[in-house]
């Protein structure tokens, strides 16, 4: 075993050089950006570059020992024992993390959920997943990355019986989880489009949402804030939910209606925009009534506000007689004919408050405890985040809820629990990751043939195997090439390099989500990016700054190198057969570094790395 101090001490001398490399790296990126942006924005970049460099130098001056991945963390727990095996790991590198208090115990809900599913598993021979596999899927689902070797070593050093549950609880309280979950939820709330320049700030909205999630604010309050609050998009970031609908300085209520309908009600009422819904009982009039809830909104240079005198007007085709309302007073004969639409909700009209702006009333109506669609929609989306697939697919088109009080499937069980415990999203996620389903192996005897595989998936008889999305993939790639955890505590240089790498990768790799937001299998060009792209080469390159190089230089022998590479990339140890087969890569190479590069490239391009299992 190589002592932890040796790892850290051996790298201290390279901090200055690394800083130089990092600055050079960023300057290259800035030059790229310089070439790709318009002239008008270029004027600001030199100043920005100076600020970045000054910040880096200041950070280096304050923390001379803090390299990108070598400095001690705030708790003194961040040194990395490069152990050969679990048995060789130190007994403890610090106190075991305490599970954050999530309020009400979730055990009863977990047990009830498991009981409902147990009947479906009774006839199947089902194995639980090993702890490291559960750790990996928890990290991928909740934090959008894989655990670092540092975290794995600390986990292995934790000898307590309930370490998996406690480590996942710790992750749920981690800012990484808040950031990732905010990104996932934001995609359903504000989509991917850039939106109108200046008035829509997705980054502000996502950061605000992450803050709310980190504080574990009841989600009904979060929804109320983004639906009903006013103000400027920078000072009140929640209003970016509203300004996402701005186009050509006009608010498109259709955008907001679709978001509310799908993300917050789990219904595709927006399909009734042009005509009555062909399959569901929603009518065009109901759609328009929902859209009219945004009819009072006015967006000015001072921000979002509501004007009680405003009402949604819908243009009429020129040849159609106006069925409702009258032409605006004083309008010229050739003015567009419109009809005014009052707000109206498609169900639960009795929950609509008597007073308030239309948006306030809509928010109150949506989060009303009697509105089971709201709680079911949130639960179904969280199931999709945790398991990679929703309980009901597509995730935003749920069947009608059962009658009040009836619980006919686990979704209702969880939705009622979510409602009864103050829309506590962290509790909901704790329940989901605490279920037996989350701890099952993804392997199953029936998965050998297609019919059996479909049956397993249909019965949720094994953990679903789903593709890792592009965001999580690049985060995992970057994490896998650092032995230390990369998070908000990491050095500014590390985080900056990660930021640019993620941006570059996503620009080239592109999105793979389908219309329902589910990641899809990679395409041929994407496979080429992974196999032959510049980033792939940089990440597996054996140098003192990558996990590849450090493992090659510091691990005791090829067996230890193989084990560490597997831990870093796949969060598990190799089997004996794998160790033998892939060990040949190390043995056949003319140098340790080259062998490690080959092994890491293989692991990075394996199906196992790219699929959550």
């Amino acid at each position, binding site marked *: 075993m190589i002592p932890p101090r040796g790892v850290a001490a051996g790298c201290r001398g390279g901090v200055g050089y690394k800083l130089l490399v990092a600055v050079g790296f960023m300057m290259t990126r800035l030059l790229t950006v310089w070439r790709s942006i318009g002239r008008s924005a270029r004027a600001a970049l030199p100043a920005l570059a100076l600020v970045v460099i000054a910040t880096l130098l200041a950070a280096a001056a304050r923390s001379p020992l803090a390299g990108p991945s070598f400095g001690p963390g705030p708790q003194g727990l961040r040194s990395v024992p490069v152990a050969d095996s679990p048995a060789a790991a130190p007994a403890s590198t610090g106190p075991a993390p305490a599970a954050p208090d999530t309020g009400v115990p979730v055990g009863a809900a977990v047990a009830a959920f498991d009981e409902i599913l147990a009947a479906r598993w009774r006839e199947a021979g089902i194995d639980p997943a090993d702890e490291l596999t559960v750790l990996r899927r928890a990290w991928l689902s909740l934090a959008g990355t894989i655990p670092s070797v540092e975290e794995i070593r600390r986990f292995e050093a934790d000898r307590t019986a309930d370490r998996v549950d406690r480590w996942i609880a710790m992750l749920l309280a981690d800012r990484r989880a808040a950031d990732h979950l905010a990104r996932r939820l934001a995609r359903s709330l504000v989509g991917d489009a850039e939106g109108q320049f200046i008035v829509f700030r997705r980054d502000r909205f996502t950061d605000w949402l992450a803050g709310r999630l980190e504080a574990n604010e009841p989600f009904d309050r979060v929804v109320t804030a983004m639906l009903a609050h006013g103000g400027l998009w920078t000072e009140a970031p929640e209003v970016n939910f509203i300004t996402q609908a701005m186009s050509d300085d006009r608010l498109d209520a259709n955008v907001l209606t679709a978001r509310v309908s799908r993300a917050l009600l789990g219904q595709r009422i927006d399909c009734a925009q042009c005509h009555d819904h062909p399959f569901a009982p929603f009518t065009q009039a109901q759609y328009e009534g929902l859209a009219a809830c945004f009819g009072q909104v006015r967006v000015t240079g001072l921000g979002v506000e509501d004007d009680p005198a405003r009402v949604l007007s819908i243009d009429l085709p020129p040849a159609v007689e106006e069925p409702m309302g009258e032409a605006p007073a004083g309008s010229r004969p050739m003015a567009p004919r419109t009809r005014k639409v009052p707000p109206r909700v498609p169900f639960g009209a009795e929950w609509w408050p008597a007073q308030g702006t239309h948006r306030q009333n809509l928010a109150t109506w949506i989060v009303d405890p009697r509105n089971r669609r709201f709680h079911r929609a949130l639960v179904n989306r969280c199931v999709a985040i945790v398991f990679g697939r929703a309980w009901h697919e597509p995730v935003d088109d749920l069947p009608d809820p059962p009658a009040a009080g009836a619980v006919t499937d686990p979704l209702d069980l969880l939705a009622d629990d979510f409602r009864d415990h103050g829309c506590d999203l962290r509790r909901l996620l704790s329940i989901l990751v605490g279920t037996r389903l989350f701890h099952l192996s993804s392997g199953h005897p029936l998965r050998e043939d297609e019919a059996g595989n479909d049956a397993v998936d249909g019965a949720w008889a094994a953990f679903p195997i789903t593709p890792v999305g592009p965001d999580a993939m690049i985060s995992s790639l970057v994490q896998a090439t650092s032995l230390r955890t990369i998070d908000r505590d990491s050095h500014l240089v590390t985080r900056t390099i990660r930021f640019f790498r993620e941006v570059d990768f996503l620009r080239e790799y592109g999105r793979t989500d*389908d219309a329902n937001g589910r990641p899809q*299998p990679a395409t041929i060009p994407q496979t080429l990016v992974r196999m032959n792209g510049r980033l792939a080469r940089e990440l597996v390159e054996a140098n003192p700054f990558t996990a590849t190089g450090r493992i090659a230089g510091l691990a005791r022998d090829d067996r230890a190198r193989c084990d560490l590479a597997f831990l870093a990339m796949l969060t598990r140890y190799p089997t004996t057969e794998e160790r033998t087969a892939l060990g040949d890569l190390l043995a056949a190479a003319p140098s340790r570094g080259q062998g490690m590069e080959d092994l890491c490239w293989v692991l990075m391009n394996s199906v196992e790395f790219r699929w959550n299992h």
Partner: protein
Amino acid sequence: MRDAVEISRRRWLQVAPLGLSFALPALPARAAARRGAERPGALVTIWLAGGPSQLESFDPHPGTPIGGPTQAIATSLPGVRIAAEYPRLAEMLDRFSLVRSLVSREGDHERGSHLLRTGYRPDPVLLHPGLGAIVASELAADGLEIPRFVALGNDPHPSRGGYLGATLDPYRVSDPGQRGQNLVPHVGSDRQARRLEGVERLSLSFAAGRAAAVRQTLDDHTRRGALAMMESEQLAAFSLDEETEAIRAAYGHTPFGRGCLVARRLVETGVRSVEVTLAGFDTHAANFTGQAAQAAILDPALAALVADLEARDLLDSTVVLVVGEFGRTPTINPLDGRDHWPHGFSGLLTGAGLVRGRVIGETDPQGLVRQPSDPIDVADLVATVLAAVGVDGSREVTTPIGRPMKLAAGRPVDRLLADRS
């Protein structure tokens, strides 16, 4: 910056339509056998990102309050004048149809690009496929080992496969003329073989207990496709090594010029859809110098592309569409720029199934009337292009969200289609 290489008129005539065939390299027998209208359709979209000014290109109004300093020149179409910055296109405008009255409903770059490319306004819950993806999806590409849909250049709002799937996202090449991105392994062949063997072994290991699930990942299939592409002789289509200096010079020694030349090579190889992007038209300031700089790049490249396709008997099967997300305002702002204007702008079309030499629409020379005469909705332009290339835009497909959707939102403009006008 004006980085196009100037080509003398004499030099241009040497490689222009009638003379170009002398410079042609020998063609592979298979490709040479498929020529004329019988050849399967293809689409080349020349995407002018940022919003080209119609007043500084194909719809100038010199001497009017909105015309600015731009001058107009006569073209090969009697009575039709275009901006003086496009002399080569002026000489061959009779081979195009020109629409001067395109009307969009989106004045934002991202939304306008989406509408122009798909025919549909952006939908918050459904991503519509771009023209290129539809063409690649609907037209067979037998024997093609490289992607059916290729995008050349850096497009700020790239086209997508939308609900047709990520497999119809374009293969993007940011620096046209190179062999293609990410196609060369980082290591030698022996080492690469060992690496691939390792991946295979690891896949087998992972498949234990989940064989069908791993098959459904399509991982093996996709990797084999990637390896086949890396070794394909068709990759030569991305390279310009086989092209003579005369042809390269005709297209212009610019990234965009090289992109147009690569586009011709890709179409010749059997790629169904190619987009070539020329960015830099968003001239909110210094409009006239900015648009002129872009014209110096666009004019030779586009003229050479159309002449080259025609000389190789590929134009009868290939539609060339030249358009941006919108036009620019008739008014000139205090920064000597023009802003976004979706209410009447220009697009050029030529090739398979299209009438040539037709000019549709007219904008107000005084800039007082917003609506152009004979307006053509951009959704109808998309439907027209699909019809011209042989795709039935009225075909209804079921999207992944279960919503039936026509491939084209608009209706083809019969006057632009050779078999309907």
